[in-house]
């Protein structure tokens, strides 16, 4: 009897602690909502709930051109997603379903690039993009995606492709299909779960990317190309958009920017978590 009581107490304590932790983690998001709907006159008032509720934060965000930034970001993301999906699946197929001389060496080199520190590489790429005249354009953000789509993605898709039975490919080959047809018509359709994961993770990466645009896009004359992260940052420093320094405008934009991420997260929660763990635990 006492053992049962003790177990219940422990379980109850566990739920209480977890609830407190979750409340703590949700607190910033809760405050985001409060701030986004606070009226302009009260954004610097020391009160917990807004004295006056208002959607003027969203209005300033729209008037200041937030949709242009959204459109730019969607365009960059779309190009990057296409590039990543096409080239990472092609490469993964090349590393899993066909054979060529030196395959393991090439694969080793691709995997070795995983170890390279990303920000260091971005800093070193700057001079190259500068010399190519790519600074202030979308090229540095999109073009590399078409060249392999990143070692992580190649690795993940390859792991998945290996589970496609070779007998299926053999059968198609006997029927006269060439390697590209087998890739396009047989292997790719069977790999859609992992391709979906790669596309979503690429979208989230582009949508939230700050360092890339900050390094390569922030040039005078390219304001019309700014993505969300960079646009918000630059406008909040620009006296012309003084409202964008207000917490209510910033948090209104924040909610708009977070919305697609949260929707995608809830729709593809399983894909996302499986994908993340596949890259680490099994890798």
């Amino acid at each position, binding site marked *: 009897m006492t053992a049962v009581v003790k177990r219940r107490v422990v379980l109850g304590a566990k739920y209480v602690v977890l609830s407190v932790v979750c409340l703590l983690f949700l607190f910033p998001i809760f405050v985001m909502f409060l701030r986004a709907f606070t009226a302009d006159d009260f954004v610097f008032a020391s009160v917990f709930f807004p004295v006056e509720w208002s959607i003027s934060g969203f209005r300033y965000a729209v008037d200041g051109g937030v949709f242009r930034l959204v459109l730019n970001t969607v365009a960059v993301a779309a190009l990057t997603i296409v590039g990543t999906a096409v080239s990472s699946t092609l490469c993964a197929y090349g590393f899993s379903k066909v054979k060529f001389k030196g395959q393991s060496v090439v694969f080793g080199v691709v995997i070795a690039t995983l170890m390279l520190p990303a920000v260091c590489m971005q800093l070193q790429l700057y001079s190259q993009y500068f010399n190519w005249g790519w600074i202030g354009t979308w090229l540095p953000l999109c073009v590399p995606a078409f*060249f392999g789509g990143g070692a992580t993605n190649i690795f993940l898709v390859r792991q998945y492709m290996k589970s496609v039975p070779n007998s299926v490919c053999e059968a198609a080959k006997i029927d006269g299909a060439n390697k590209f047809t087998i890739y396009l018509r047989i292997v790719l359709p069977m790999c859609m779960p992992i391709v979906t994961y790669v596309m979503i993770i690429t979208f989230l990466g582009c949508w939230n990317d700050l360092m890339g645009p900050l390094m390569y896009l922030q040039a005078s004359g390219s304001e019309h190309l700014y993505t969300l992260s960079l646009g918000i940052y630059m406008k909040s420093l620009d006296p012309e958009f003084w409202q964008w320094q207000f917490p209510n405008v910033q948090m209104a934009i924040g909610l708009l920017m977070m919305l697609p991420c949260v929707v995608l997260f809830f729709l593809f929660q399983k894909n996302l978590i499986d994908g993340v763990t596949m890259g680490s635990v099994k890798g």
Partner: protein
Amino acid sequence: MALQSKRRKLKPLDNFTSFLFVLPAVLGILLFTLLPMVSSLYYSFTEYNTMVSASPQKWVGLANYKAIFTTEWPKVGHALGVTALYSLITIPLYMIIGFALALPLFREARGVRVFRTLVYLPVLIPMIISGYLWNDLTQSYGHINQLLVAVGLKPYAFFTSNDTAMTAFILMGLFTVGGNIVLWVAQMKAIPDSMFEAAKLEGARYPTLLLRIIIPMCTPMIFYNLVLSVVNSLQTYASAIVVRTHLNADALDFYVGQVYSKIVEMSDLGLGSAMSWLLFAIIAIIAGVTFKFNKWVYYEEEM
């Protein structure tokens, strides 16, 4: 026999068409990894300011590297110190907190899934927005100070002072530990139930389970996490750009920020490249040492 010889003749072409599939990755590594590494290494030995001319002005040998440790050292050394301090505190801190929070979340039980999701949600706040959010949360009129005052504590300066900004920045980073928890949970879920059952039959209590089963079985993740956090925390910059102001510029003076301003703002590609290579070397050495001492990691199967 005839078939076999035919196949042999086709082989070079077959080899080539197979290679074509991985050509994008090969070109990508050449163009966007190898080429920039080689050229930035070359620029690091030159005087190269893009405001002066489009190509390097002159070869200066090791002068840039020498400058880092002499004329530039007061600034560079300070930034390295800030980066090292941040890394030394946050690597163990985030790992331990992530691990501790994963412990009650890895066994399937009622509600656990919901808790996992909720703890992960702050990770979805975009980096730039998280900067503005924390800037607002920690102001003197902000919600955190309101709560501190409400429970009878004194308001805290957070990002408005050099003395407290690092603490505030570490606290802000703590809210993205959810990404880490997902990995810990996955690793812990992979521990076979039979191990726990056997231990329980032997009368083992929770501390024993933790020390003898969970932690040893998690060593691959500890190692993976360690390498990843070393590489990431030494490259911290983007998450600090919004919260870094004139009030805390010293405390949040990260090394990558200095390299960024040398390269992008001052167009000094010579010195900037040298500084980026110094960071590269530091990361390579620390990661290498970590790899060398990984005897404590338990691998279920040899790769």
